[in-house]
């Protein structure tokens, strides 16, 4: 297997140009929203609004302004599939359509997916959705086809500020740590890395440098694997079955006849 590949996204240098979104759409031939008719959000420069089956990259505009709008700031973040080391979508997929590639990335095989949507409910980041054209669940593939040809993913290639950086996860973590140290020395004490170590789902192959709490960026502070509930939910279900079975047996063995007599006129 090749070395794990991923993205390091430094949100402090994102300028919200959306070149990544456009490059992703072009390379992956993703359809326009609303049949090509321009749909504006009306309250933000963010008109994409979310990741889904036809938006595999999404530049988030987090607008933090005071009531009077005298003061404020934009936080910008190009969001994408995290290609988790412990991937919730891959874990639950009942068709085997979701696989881990030789680059340690997570890819949905559209020809195998039947659109059951279990992966959508499982993804802790809300990344996956149905592509209305294919009728299958889709998300970022980390440009698997380009990687196989030794090329860089379209989004990071197009990024003009190197906010999105592509490389081996090991190398990216080193680069991210250097940038973090630089920011801390410059007084940006709130800067931290999200998903660059094993604490979050065994590590996110696509990780972020953030300067506010994860939830401000729409990221879960404590994402978990869906199977965390499997054992407890199964055991409680068995308990329910045992209790119902016990109630049934008691009533049919001991009380059936007597109750019958009671109901007779």
């Amino acid at each position, binding site marked *: 297997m090749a070395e794990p590949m991923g993205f390091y996204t430094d949100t402090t240098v994102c300028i919200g140009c959306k070149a990544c979104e456009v490059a992703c759409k072009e390379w992956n031939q993703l359809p326009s929203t609303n049949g090509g008719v321009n749909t504006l959000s009306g309250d933000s420069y963010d008109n994409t609004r979310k990741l889904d089956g036809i938006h595999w990259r999404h530049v988030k505009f987090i607008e933090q302004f005071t009531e009077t709008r005298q003061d404020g700031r934009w936080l910008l973040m190009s969001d994408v599939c995290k290609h988790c080391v412990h991937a919730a979508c891959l*874990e*639950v*997929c*009942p*068709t*085997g*359509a979701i696989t881990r590639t030789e680059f340690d990335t997570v890819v949905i095989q559209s*020809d*195998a*997916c*039947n*659109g*059951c*949507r*279990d992966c*959508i*409910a*499982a*993804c*802790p*980041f*809300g990344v*996956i*959705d*149905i592509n209305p054209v294919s*009728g*299958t669940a889709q998300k970022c593939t980390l440009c698997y086809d380009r990687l196989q040809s030794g090329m860089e993913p379209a989004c990071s290639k197009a990024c003009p500020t190197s906010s999105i950086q592509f490389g081996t996860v090991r190398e990216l973590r080193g680069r991210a740590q250097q940038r973090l140290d630089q920011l801390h020395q410059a007084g940006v004490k709130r800067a931290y890395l999200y998903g660059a170590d094993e604490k979050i789902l065994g590590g996110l192959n696509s990780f972020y440098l953030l300067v506010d709490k994860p*939830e*401000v960026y*729409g*990221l*879960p*502070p*404590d*994402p*978990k694997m*869906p*199977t965390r*509930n*499997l054992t*407890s*939910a*199964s055991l*409680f*279900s068995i*308990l*329910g*079955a045992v209790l*119902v*079975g016990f*109630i*049934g*047996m008691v*009533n*049919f063995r001991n*009380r*059936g006849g007597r*109750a*019958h007599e009671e*109901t007779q006129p």
Partner: protein
Amino acid sequence: MNGVPSSTYFTVSPEWGWLITLYFFFGGLAGGAYFLAALIDFFGQPEDRPLARLGYYISFPCVIISGFLLVIDLHRPLRFWHMLIESNTFQPMFKYWSPMSAGSWALLIFGIFSFLSFLGALAESDRLRWSAAGRLRPPGVIAIVLALVGGLFGFYVAGYTGVLLAVTNRPIWSDTPLLGMLFIVSAASTSVALLILLAERAGWTMPGLAALYRMDIYVLGLELIVLIAVVVSLGPVWRAWLNLWGLLLGAIIVLGMLFPLALNWRKDWLGDFNVTATAALVLMGGFLLRIVIVFSSEGI
């Protein structure tokens, strides 16, 4: 946590809507009715055999409806077989840790058991002229194995749906481990209610029916306890029901659980209509319960 009570609030809805809600209801009836029929076969009296057959008559059509609902809910329905066979390798596709994968197999296997018991019931009542099918009814060994294993799969089909919801990252569903237990108990209560309703309409008076009346009380009581446990186990997420869904849940508790329990206690309240009303309210409550569980999370 930026105004949300759980990390599950950062996920998106899979849009499991009416078709899945209906499946949860019919799947529960399929499993529950089969379990009851098997229970009657094992512990009932000879006069109860029509009641057991009624259970099998309910179960198999409900399995068919369930399969149909699941297939048409897929965005690519013709690929339904990908749940069972890996489309690239044509090897069996089975993940025991994925409730949807294991549940697909369970539904298929349960469907076979349900079909065989359905055939047996038809043969026993002379609706099917096929003597071999008669061996699918007790006291033969085949029939006992069928009822025992089929009954266990019935429980699985009735309950795995709740485990499936728990094994996601969606609000409410994955914030409690008790939905599988709730669905199993609710499947039992709705199945008992349907058996009672149909037997009552047919004018039957066998001893097993009286046992079902009594079972109804205990199962409804258990369902109420489990539902309260679900709300408690949600922790801060229970606030997701401080809206119309919560009101509907309250109505389910009052009209679908407490009132039927009261009608069981005071059998003269509604006269001849008492049994029918009790059963109908329990069935309605079971269906509405699944609507609340599915749609209250879908709306977040």
